[in-house]
């Protein structure tokens, strides 16, 4: 059964810009829910550069992606936002003035007054290997995620990759698979050492196979794989399989945003730079996903955009109220909201 969640604003994307938007909205008494396709908070900061330094956050000479995410979480704590992680927004419909409906692939439905797209470079989705003729097999016998382990019981499985996803699924599926072969381009693995040891023990015991090489071609028909050719350094081997699970990490794709009737330019959303509103009133776009003359894809620009967005969103959420601009330094009412007064 699907649940409908009613809130003021739905923010699509829980990267730094989406997180700071919670702060700016919160100061104006606007409640927010955030939805992100990743299973963690932080967006690109968490996925692409958790340990890499960022040098251009104003007032912070040096911080890592994780550090910035944690600091923002601390900053927005008083506003108690709700996160919906590991979910992709599939549809966004405007029902009326200040009335939107947003649905996710996890079956949740939201009704809200404004929508803020803070989706950065789009949604992180699995990288697809460039194997000729792979498309007809996808979602039939080639899978980029495991939704139900039972679907793989008794099957001959090929898992491709050398990271934690490949190793974890190797260890989880090996007991129920008929035969499991792990394929990786080199005999070294970047996954957790414990998982690597467990995998090597299974190989040594003859309970699974490890092939060093790259998948060069697929065999089968009607979407059903029968075998894959693995090109190694010296020879190409043919391995029979019923299903293949490639794990090559994630890449950013625009995703369903393109289908929501928003005016777009080169996969970016043009906005009014006074309000960061799109061509649809009440729908905003902030951060890397928007475009306007002079746009810079910087976190600091996204913060500014969030602040201006919140001012306009206020009028949709509280149409009868007058907005008085205040500073956190001097306003007792803002300090009360932040829990410091």
């Amino acid at each position, binding site marked *: 059964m699907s649940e409908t969640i009613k809130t003021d604003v739905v923010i699509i994307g829980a990267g730094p810009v989406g997180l700071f938007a919670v702060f700016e909205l919160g100061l104006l008494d606007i409640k927010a829910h955030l939805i992100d396709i990743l299973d963690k908070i932080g967006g690109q900061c968490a996925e*692409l550069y958790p340990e890499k330094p960022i040098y251009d956050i104003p007032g912070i000479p040096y911080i890592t992606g994780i550090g910035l995410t944690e600091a923002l979480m601390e900053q927005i704590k008083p506003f108690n936002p709700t996160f919906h992680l590991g979910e992709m927004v599939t549809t966004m419909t405007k029902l009326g003035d200040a009335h939107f409906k947003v649905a996710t692939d996890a079956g949740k439905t939201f009704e809200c007054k404004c929508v803020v797209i803070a989706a950065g470079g789009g949604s992180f989705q699995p990288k697809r290997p460039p194997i000729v003729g792979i498309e007809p097999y996808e979602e039939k016998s080639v899978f980029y995620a495991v939704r139900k382990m039972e679907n793989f019981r008794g099957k001959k499985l090929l898992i491709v990759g050398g*990271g934690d996803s490949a190793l974890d699924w190797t260890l989880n599926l090996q007991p129920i698979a008929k035969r499991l072969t792990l394929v990786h381009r080199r005999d070294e693995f970047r996954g957790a050492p414990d998982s690597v040891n467990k995998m090597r023990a299974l190989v040594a015991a003859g309970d699974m196979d490890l092939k060093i090489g*790259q998948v060069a071609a697929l065999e089968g028909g009607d979407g059903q794989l029968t075998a894959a050719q693995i090109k190694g350094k010296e020879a190409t081997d043919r391995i029979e399989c019923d299903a293949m699970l490639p794990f090559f990490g994630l890449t950013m794709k625009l995703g369903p945003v393109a289908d929501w009737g928003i005016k777009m330019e080169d996969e970016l959303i043009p906005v009014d730079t006074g309000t960061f509103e799109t061509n649809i009133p009440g729908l905003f776009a902030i951060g890397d996903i928007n475009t306007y003359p002079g746009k810079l894809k910087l976190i600091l620009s996204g913060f500014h955009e969030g602040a201006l967005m919140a001012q306009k969103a206020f009028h949709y959420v509280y149409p009868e109220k007058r907005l008085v601009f205040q500073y956190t330094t001097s306003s007792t009412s803002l300090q009360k909201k932040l829990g410091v007064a």
Partner: protein
Amino acid sequence: MSLQEASPAVEAKKETMPKITYIEHDGTEHTVEAELGSTVMETALKNDIGGIVAECGGGCTCATCLVHVDEKWFPVVGPPSEEENQMLDTAFEVTETSRLSCQIKVTEKLDGLIVRTPSYQGR
């Protein structure tokens, strides 16, 4: 501008600008000057060379700036670090001379470098 007309200052600058040749998967060749201390990835983006995505902007965290270094040049460029090798695990059609171009710093030794860009970087 011919060499005779060039001022000594300009000439001196040119001498320290190594040239890199990028060959796209369809055979299109670009020979461009690269700034010392920049990277082979940055030079590609600056010159609108096809086949380099560089999603993460040079952080060695996305493997979408893969190049195949010309075999003759590979010993000069050198092998990837372990960190880079781990990212190469998430790239496709990786060969013995594949590198992430964001991890190749431009030095005087690389004058004349030839790299090939792939048709697909995973997106």
